[in-house]
């Protein structure tokens, strides 16, 4: 298993764990829930940094196939991220179109889940592309 696969596997596992942790927080709607979600977001970013540091997945350590797969997975990640943001935003609109007001907690949830989805799509795509081979984009 190459460095980038280790990084992706740990990132995917970590992202799923952070989603599970967030789902375990009761929906109280009380003060503190927003701050707790933001704290989890900071912890998630810190986890990404730790994974990258300890797996040694620096760009200089990757060869051309690794970088090709990383770039192609980033395209997948961006599309997945965009889809999650769009679907989440439409759901918020449908849920609150009557009042025209979206609760702050749900805005933070949109930020939290969409950011984690970016890493789920990205790391998942990396692991799949190592199995299937990078896409050939030439003629």
């Amino acid at each position: 298993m190459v460095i980038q696969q280790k990084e992706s596997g740990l990132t995917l596992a970590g992202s799923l764990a952070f989603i599970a942790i967030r789902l375990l927080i009761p929906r109280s709607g009380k003060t503190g829930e927003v701050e707790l979600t933001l704290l989890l977001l900071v912890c998630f970013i810190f986890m990404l940094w730790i994974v990258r540091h300890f797996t040694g997945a620096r760009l200089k350590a990757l060869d051309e196939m690794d970088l090709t797969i990383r770039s192609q997975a980033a395209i997948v990640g961006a599309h997945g991220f965009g889809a999650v943001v769009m679907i989440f935003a439409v759901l918020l609109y449908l849920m609150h179109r009557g009042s025209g007001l979206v609760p702050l907690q749900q805005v933070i949830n949109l930020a939290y889940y969409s950011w984690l989805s970016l890493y789920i799509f990205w790391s998942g795509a990396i692991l799949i592309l190592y199995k299937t081979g990078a896409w050939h984009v030439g003629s």
Partner: protein
Amino acid sequence: MLDHNTGITNTIRKCRFDQGEMTQEQLAQKVGVTRQTIIALEAGKYLPSLLLAIRIARVFDKNVEEVFQIGT
């Protein structure tokens, strides 16, 4: 091995054995990639850049076309 996306074949595996059974790891070190990339190349799962193709051909003292061919 045939790359099913491009129809390009390569003889890297044969070339390695012609070069005194050079290992994938040795070839990887000579051309500056990981062994995983050599495995993917031999399996037809990855099409190399022109630079990497030239480097690989040079290791075997061959032209690029002798190592990489367009399949029919």
